[in-house]
């Protein structure tokens, strides 16, 4: 039995971060990005709200915070609805292309912390 556990553990370790998605671990804090543009799609959903922001060079998938935290900090689904212009400061994903996790966003001149 214990041999099998070791084999499983090895497999899990080697399989690696194929689907990294959450936490801050898989984002490159050494190369922060600032994106400003209109919101193309908006999901005010758990576990994290997500918006697509059309930047100057490309469309970023921006991962925000859990909706309970966002609400708690004064943000509603309407405030990040499609068409609104927003600035996101955050870190690009080391796993998923064109995805970033926002440290904070600026909306109508007001800053909202996501962490």
């Amino acid at each position, binding site marked *: 039995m214990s041999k099998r*556990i070791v084999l499983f553990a090895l497999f899990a370790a080697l399989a*690696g971060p*194929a689907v990294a998605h959450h936490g801050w671990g898989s984002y490159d804090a050494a190369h922060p990005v600032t994106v400003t543009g209109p919101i193309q799609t908006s999901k005010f959903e*758990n*576990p994290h709200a997500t918006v697509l922001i059309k930047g100057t060079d490309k469309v970023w998938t921006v991962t925000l915070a859990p909706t309970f935290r966002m609400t708690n900090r004064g943000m509603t689904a309407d405030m990040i609805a499609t068409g609104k212009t927003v600035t996101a400061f955050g870190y690009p994903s080391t796993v998923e292309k064109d995805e970033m996790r926002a440290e904070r966003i600026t909306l109508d001149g007001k800053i909202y912390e996501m962490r």
Partner: protein
Amino acid sequence: MLHDAPAVFVALEQSGFASGIRQSLWLYPAANVGHIVSLVCFAGAIAVMDLRMAGALAKTTPGYVLKIGRLASVLAFAGLAATGFILFAAEASHVAVNPVFQFKMALVLLGLLNVAYFELRIAPEVKAMAPLEPLPRAARVAGILSIVIWLVAAACGRSIAYF
């Protein structure tokens, strides 16, 4: 990522049930908190039984420790399963292909097989034994195996978010 997962998990994630979980402000966080609290209760109950089987707390009656521990751990496991399913459903297509989640599920299966083996083969013999009476070697092995399996499963659960 959506297309990598088996269709059943994609369908679960796209169901009204899963969508309702994602859109509720409190349901997902509540399931998250409930999962951890259930885990604490489960680990506590399991630890008492496993330590007894491993030879600690030798002055207690094995049958009595198992009776109480079994009740508490079954209730806590039901809580873990219910809250875990809510967390899983919300992101089923992503979580199903997560290697750490798959490893954790294999451990849970292994843990439940250990429970089944223990309850069918070892518990009937052990529960009639007196305090301080040496337990069979199989009981010791099952107890130690159990505590290792469940602790590693818990560690894997917390690690899913980082892989």
